[in-house]
């Protein structure tokens, strides 16, 4: 059982590598499009991480420690979001004029309504609860590529 602990850093490093590479590619994509902004860097990083997971799984290299190094940060996500909420310019937003409030509230309300509308197209989808129940009942063997 040597190295279960030392495997953790490989997970963290893989996550950091994917995030950095995604940011780099997002910046490059933005530059290629002639705009001074990152285009989809986080999304690209997510795809890279998913690809890395599938690759490691297939070769049986996805050790528990590696997995922990990544899922730990995923679990810290909500606290990070709470800290992010605590650093928003709420005081400034509260003082905003009526036009700012009208545009922001209007845009959010319209988009919320469209989320509901689009949910009606294309038939029912498996909810997260159903998905979790299914995955639990299937219970893939370790190393099995579900």
């Amino acid at each position: 059982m040597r190295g279960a602990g030392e495997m953790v850093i490989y997970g963290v490093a893989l996550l950091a590598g994917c995030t950095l590479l995604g940011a780099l590619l997002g910046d490059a994509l933005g530059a290629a499009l002639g705009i001074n902004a990152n285009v989809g860097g986080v999304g690209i990083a997510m795809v890279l991480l998913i690809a890395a997971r599938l690759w490691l799984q297939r070769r049986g290299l996805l050790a528990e420690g590696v997995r922990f190094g990544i899922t730990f940060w995923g679990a810290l996500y909500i606290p990070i979001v709470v800290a992010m909420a605590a650093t928003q310019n709420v005081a400034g937003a509260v003082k905003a004029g009526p036009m700012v409030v009208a545009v922001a509230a209007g845009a959010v309300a319209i988009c919320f309504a469209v989320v509901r509308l689009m949910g009606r197209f294309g038939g029912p989808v498996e909810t997260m609860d159903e998905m979790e129940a299914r995955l639990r009942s299937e219970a893939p063997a370790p190393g099995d590529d579900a």
Partner: protein
Amino acid sequence: MIAELLEAQGLLTAFALVGLVMGLSAVVSRSLTRGRIHGSAIAVLAGLVLAWLGGTLTGGRHGLADIPMLSGVGLMGGAMLRDFGIVATAFEVDVAKARAAGLYGAVALLLGLVLPFLTGVLVALGFGYTDPVSLTTIGAGAITYIVGPVTGAALGASPEVMAIAIAIGVLKAILVMAATPFLAGIMGLDNSRSAMVFGGLMGTTSGVSAGLAATDPRLVPYGALTATFSTGLGCLFGPSLFFLIVRAVFGG
């Protein structure tokens, strides 16, 4: 002396403080709402209230992080760890599900650019703005708080209009954070596809990720997957296509 210590060990202070806030929120969720309102939703709301408090006390623009001994909250909640955390949540993504919802996500992404932009332009018209540069900048601000200033800078908008565009984007993110957990049921936000649609339509990565985290953390990666493209596409279309259309319609 304690204040100095807390400032020097900023990130640790932030971990302890956020843990405390989340613990108290869980207690409030259980005892006052009998679990009906998720603890993380209350924690996000508490975070926003603390941000208001920090901003009011210091006059700064970074909420709690403007109080020196709580500056570590800014590091913990900053873009670096936020993106690190979002990417980590992708580890649990069901690839087939994400691929199946891809078209919905793409359509939502486009609607998420056009609808807020139109809202911004029309409201700005109602408030007496008529020049295409101001209209476009205000419309772009309704996409995300980065698209607004990027578009305004590219078009040469006035500082006042830029400030308005940023304020709209920030308020939008805050509204999405605060309102999502309460309206999730009405929106049917309980599956991976609706989360991807939601991410594309809302656009604001911080609003989407906080709103979904407070609703059901399992939805976060699906929403983030689409939302992350919104700011980039908005910066692409705002000063170009959208501006040209606005100028064609309202003269210039």
